[in-house]
Structures are given as structure tokens and as C-alpha cells.
């Protein structure tokens, strides 16, 4: 199945763009989709502990299941204010 990745701030710079599609096995979790990206971009692995994930506009943990067409946002620590 195919999901859409939204990357923000420093993560966007590492993966080279705000949006990309990622081909993952059916039933993949958010965390394993992140792992697949981190294999492609090893610099992501260095900051894995501090990232947050969101599925279709809502925060999720790594074990959240993905479906075809889902939007997975990957977010570094926030800096608003």
C-alpha cells in the first residue's frame, strides 16, 4: 500500500521535501514506516527518540496501524512561541 509522508522543519530538510509517498506492506504501523524512512535517511535514526508522529492530522504512537492512502506526519521537537 502507499502512504503519504509529511515532514516538517529539520526533518523536511533531511528527507529533501515536505511531502513524499512511501510504499509499505499492508498493515504497516506508523513506527515501522518511520523505520523504513530512517533506513533511507540514516540521519533520522539519530533523532528518533525526540520525534512525534501524526496520522491523518491526529497524534499517534508508533504502534498505530496505517491504511492505504493515510497521511503520516513526522515532526521534530516543537519550537512555537
Amino acid at each position, binding site marked *: 500500500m502507499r502512504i503519504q509522508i509529511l515532514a*516538517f*522543519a529539520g526533518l523536511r530538510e533531511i528527507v529533501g521535501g515536505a511531502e513524499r509517498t512511501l510504499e509499505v506492506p499492508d498493515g504497516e504501523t506508523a513506527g515501522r514506516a518511520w523505520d523504513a524512512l530512517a533506513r533511507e535517511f540514516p540521519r533520522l535514526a539519530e533523532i528518533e527518540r*525526540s520525534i512525534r508522529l*501524526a496520522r491523518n*492530522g491526529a497524534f499517534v504512537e508508533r504502534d498505530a496501524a496505517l491504511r492505504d492512502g493515510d497521511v503520516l506526519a513526522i515532526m*521534530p521537537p*516543537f*519550537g*512555537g*512561541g
Partner: protein
Amino acid sequence: MKYEITREPLRLDDLIAAVQTEACGAVVAFLGVVRELGDGDQPVDGLSYEAYPELALTEMRAIGAQASRKFGDARVAIAHRIGDLGIGEASVAVAVAAAHRGVAFDACEHAIDELKRRVPIWKKEHFRSGAARWRPNAVPGT
């Protein structure tokens, strides 16, 4: 009440108008502004902000609703600017109206603290030296 992510300069009057009612005896307004010294007290030319607007607005609304529950009658509005900001420009504005000032001050502080902790917005510092770096907020307790 009003929650906004915008590229335009922030207008505190609009936020105050969105929260004030005839029942309110106090309005507290907060502006976060870009200052000249960034990380390590190095001078900056400015900051650039980006957001995940959909999720940021969801979180901002939740912060307002939480403040209203936690602080009784507080009415909260929050706006955050994105894009490139120069020194002295406002990046975030919070307005809180309540019957009495104690609640309004407390709810305003709560709202800005929560925004920094849980709203997906990021800032990049553009140092006068030419370097640039994403700057996360300090996490309490670390």
C-alpha cells in the same frame, strides 16, 4: 473564540474582541516577540516559523477548551504567525477574558506554556553570522 495560524502580522485587538463579553472584568493579552539574541546569546537577523496548520489548530482549540475547564470562566483566543519575522515582530498572541484578573492571568500563562509544549510549530534562527538552526523549546524537567 478564535484560533489562527497566519502569515499576516498579528492583531491583538482582533483576539481581544473575540473573547471579551459584558461578563468580563479582566482581559489579559500576551505577545511573544522576536528578540535580538538567539541560542547561546548570538545575535539573529530574524526567525522563520513553520507549522502543521491542521494539527496546530486542533491543539490550539484543545488548549483553549482545557483552559476554560481548568480556570472556570476563562475565554481564550490564540494566534500564531508563520513565515519570516524580524526582530520586534510578534510571533504569537494570546488573549484571555474572564470575570476577574486572577483567572485571566493564570489561564493566559497556561495557554502559552501549553502552546510551546504541544502545538506543532517550529522556528529557525537566522544568525547574523549567516548560520541558521532550528531551535526547539526547552522541555520542563530536563
